[in-house]
């Protein structure tokens, strides 16, 4: 360790945010961003496993061509899987947990700009989640997470309004988180923390927050109109009453396409931290990685029409959207190339977070490239609404986002808990997740091109082999997710005490904040004196603390 640590103390010897106060009240009424992050961590994990349970049901059903459950059950399974995973896991996952925990520390602030709004956002999320659970308990929804009209407004006999209300409510939680981050990044940076020294994690979250703030209101109003339409049948989305069902799709995807960038940008943000740390080298092309996040955030808003190539959208509009979808791939490609180049002449080690980062880069590459395929219109005509789209989406979301989430959890586990996780178990878990994931979703690319439509409770017999492979892979993937839960829970209680900076990483959160951090994050007011990722130690003003 080259840097002198200002407070080389151990857990238990000093007060930190975890032992500063006790009792349920100290958690449920906390305004400490770190505690709120943990509240979020437990709730999103719970929703992740709930959504996973629905996926297990789906994969069981698809073992035979006729299906094992009734069609109705299957339709509800995939709908609830989608709703829970998208709105209650993927959207809040990294921002509300790792982002919440780390952004203030990384920029040297004592808390987010609006701590009470931060707590409020968690309560809103929980209320939305409870409404969603209530909708499930009441019998579920069978519209698909996309709620396409007029099926959702007129024909479905399930709890569409309840589900819409749940998403509407949780949307405000997302907006408030984004608002908090934007203000925090603008106004709460410590002395010396200029925009060009900002960790890329913060840049990524800033871009994410912009999308949350600008996109989420539109899904809220869309679902509001959907609910009103279902209640009053005024016909706004109903063609028999003069409405246009395609308008719903426009408004829906205006949010829901940028929403996939809400999900993936924080993942990229995590990878941009992990790769330099485990390569012992500054990120290659800092400005390009930073601005590509903003580029994705802006361009991501003008590509939604690629979901409507076969929906009756004007061919000319489709052409524009197809072109923009190609353009938005450029900043994503830039990121991948820069991460790769970061390792060049570095000193690469292979701890669990780095393994997940490798997984992310690989799977995101495949997911991103197949995304380009789908932006190619004539190809999209054949594979849209088939398993090809499912596979693409899961490569980006599970292969990308969840991999990054797992990598981030492992990377900052010592920071959050003050303890170390068992490295070998971590590596085994990462390998199992990687193998299980590919077994589950690669066959789905083939299924899709062969013409297997999505959302099918039963299917033509020739697809069975690939479906069984996929289900087998899913069971491995499930084991892969259970292993970390077990050893991380163990490590939280019994793991070895972590030093302040177990990875020898750069950044205020490792170098200037004790591990685990005290309630206001720093014992000494932090000052940023060097560029981000200054692993080679060039030009640093020495003698901190």
């Amino acid at each position, binding site marked *: 360790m080259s840097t002198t640590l200002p407070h080389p103390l151990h857990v238990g010897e000093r007060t930190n945010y975890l032992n500063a106060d006790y009792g349920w009240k100290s958690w449920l009424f906390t305004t400490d961003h770190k505690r709120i992050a943990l509240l979020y961590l437990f709730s999103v994990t719970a929703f992740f496993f709930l959504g996973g349970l629905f996926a297990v049901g789906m994969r069981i059903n698809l073992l035979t061509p006729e299906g094992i459950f009734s069609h109705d059950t299957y339709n509800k399974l995939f709908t609830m899987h989608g709703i829970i995973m998208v709105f209650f896991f993927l959207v809040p996952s990294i921002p509300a947990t790792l982002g919440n925990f780390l952004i203030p520390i990384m920029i040297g602030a004592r808390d987010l700009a609006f701590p009470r709004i931060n707590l409020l956002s968690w309560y809103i999320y929980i209320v939305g989640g409870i409404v969603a659970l209530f909708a499930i308990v009441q019998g579920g929804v069978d519209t698909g997470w996309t709620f396409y009209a007029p099926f959702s407004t*007129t024909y479905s006999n399930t709890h569409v309004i309840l589900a819409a209300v749940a998403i509407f409510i949780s949307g405000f939680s997302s907006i408030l988180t984004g608002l908090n981050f934007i203000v925090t990044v603008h106004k709460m940076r410590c002395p010396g923390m200029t925009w060009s020294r900002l960790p890329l994690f913060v840049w990524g979250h800033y871009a994410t927050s912009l999308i949350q703030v600008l996109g989420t209101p539109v899904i809220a109003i869309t679902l509001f109109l959907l609910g009103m339409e279902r209640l009053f049948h005024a016909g706004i989305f109903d063609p*028999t009453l003069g409405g246009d069902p395609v308008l719903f799709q426009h408004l829906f995807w205006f949010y829901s396409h940028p929403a996939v960038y809400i999900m993936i940008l924080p993942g990229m943000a995590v990878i941009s931290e992990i790769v330099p740390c485990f390569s012992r080298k500054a990120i290659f092309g800092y400005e390009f990685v930073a601005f590509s996040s903003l580029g994705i955030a802006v361009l991501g808003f003008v590509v939604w029409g690629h979901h409507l190539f076969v929906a009756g959208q004007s061919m000319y509009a489709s052409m524009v959207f197809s072109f923009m979808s190609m353009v938005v791939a450029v900043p994503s*490609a830039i990121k991948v190339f*820069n991460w*790769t180049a970061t390792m060049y002449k570095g000193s690469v080690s292979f701890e669990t977070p780095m393994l997940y980062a490798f997984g992310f880069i690989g799977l995101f590459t495949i997911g991103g490239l197949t995304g380009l395929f789908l932006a190619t219109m*004539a190809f999209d*005509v054949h594979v849209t609404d088939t398993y090809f789209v499912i596979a693409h989406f899961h490569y980006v979301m599970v292969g990308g986002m969840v991999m990054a989430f797992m990598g981030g959890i492992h990377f900052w586990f010592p920071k959050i808990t003050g303890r170390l996780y068992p490295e070998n178990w971590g590596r085994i878990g990462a390998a199992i997740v990687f193998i299980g994931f590919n077994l589950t979703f690669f066959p789905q690319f083939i299924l899709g091109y062969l013409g297997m439509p999505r959302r099918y409770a039963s299917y033509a017999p020739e697809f069975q082999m690939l479906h069984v492979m996929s289900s087998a892979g899913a069971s491995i993937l499930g084991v892969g997710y259970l292993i970390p839960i077990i050893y991380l829970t163990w490590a939280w209680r019994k793991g070895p005490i972590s030093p302040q900076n177990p990875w020898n990483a750069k950044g205020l959160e490792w170098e200037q904040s004790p591990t685990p951090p005290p309630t206001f994050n720093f014992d000494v007011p932090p000052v940023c004196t060097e560029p981000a990722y200054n692993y080679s130690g060039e030009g640093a003003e020495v003698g901190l603390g």
Partner: protein
Amino acid sequence: MSIFSIFPDRASTTAGQVDLLYTFLMVVGIVMTVIIFSVVAFFAFKYRRKDPTYRPKAIHGSLPLEITWSVIPFFVMLVMFAWGTKLYFQNYTPPRKDTLDIYVVGKQWMWKVQYPDGQREINELHVPTGRAVKLTLASEDVLHSFYIPAFRLKHDVVPGSYETYWFEATTPGRYHIFCAEYCGTNHSEMKGWVTVMSPNDYQAWLQNGVPDESMADQGHKLFDRYACVTCHVTDQPEHAPPLTNVFGHPVQLEDGRTVIADEAFLRESILNPSAKVVKGYQPNIMPVFEGQINEEGLLQLIVYIKSLSDSTAAPETHRDSPAGAIPPAKPIHKQ
């Protein structure tokens, strides 16, 4: 189809073109993936940590490299974009002339197919090879999507409007039809078969029996039954616009706009006549037929009105269907 194939059956001229595009995309994808994977693996191995205290020198970036790996992929993407767009416009733009028009109505959870000569089928579609077939898609209820993997084609079926696409089948055989847009409980049962036949077999299939009446005839019957005939008379244009030679021609509207009298215009004018009133006529004279005629009946009426506009034939000849070359045949399924 072999279970190890990664290509579905190829049974239309489009299929080969889409497969070629797919192959191009795959090659680009595999090359990119291999490059990235091998570079990552190579760097990870070559620069693996040997000395824990070693601090590599920082490399902050390289503008030429950034430009290179932004611009080259972008140009590759431009090729994808241009190729995909060209094929897309081609598949969704039916030829103006000489198509075999077949009408498909999606309904929870079945496909109803009507042929110009009056045959009707459910969940079955028969087409000849070597002929441009134009599908007109309508929905009775929710969104569906008429998907034929062997032709590499699909289009959503949107209630309230007509969607079309076209293909030319090449290989006789039986291929899947799937509904690809989620449409409710039995979405996965909303599937059928398309049978591609050689022209001779197709003729034989058509001549399997004597048709009762062509689609235009059925439309004519409806035209009489709904008493359209009392006002829409050719020699008395003062009550209502005559319908001879209307289809496909521009129509001046009361509010000054001009529209082409296509299927969508006819459909709207039947269901809600006052929405677009032809110049010189009053709104609210013609009754509203919304909710009275189902999608199949509407298509029959439209085919009838179309038959009045075929400039090559006498307008009043009912037998003159757009697929004039095909002799009348008997319906396969009576309904």
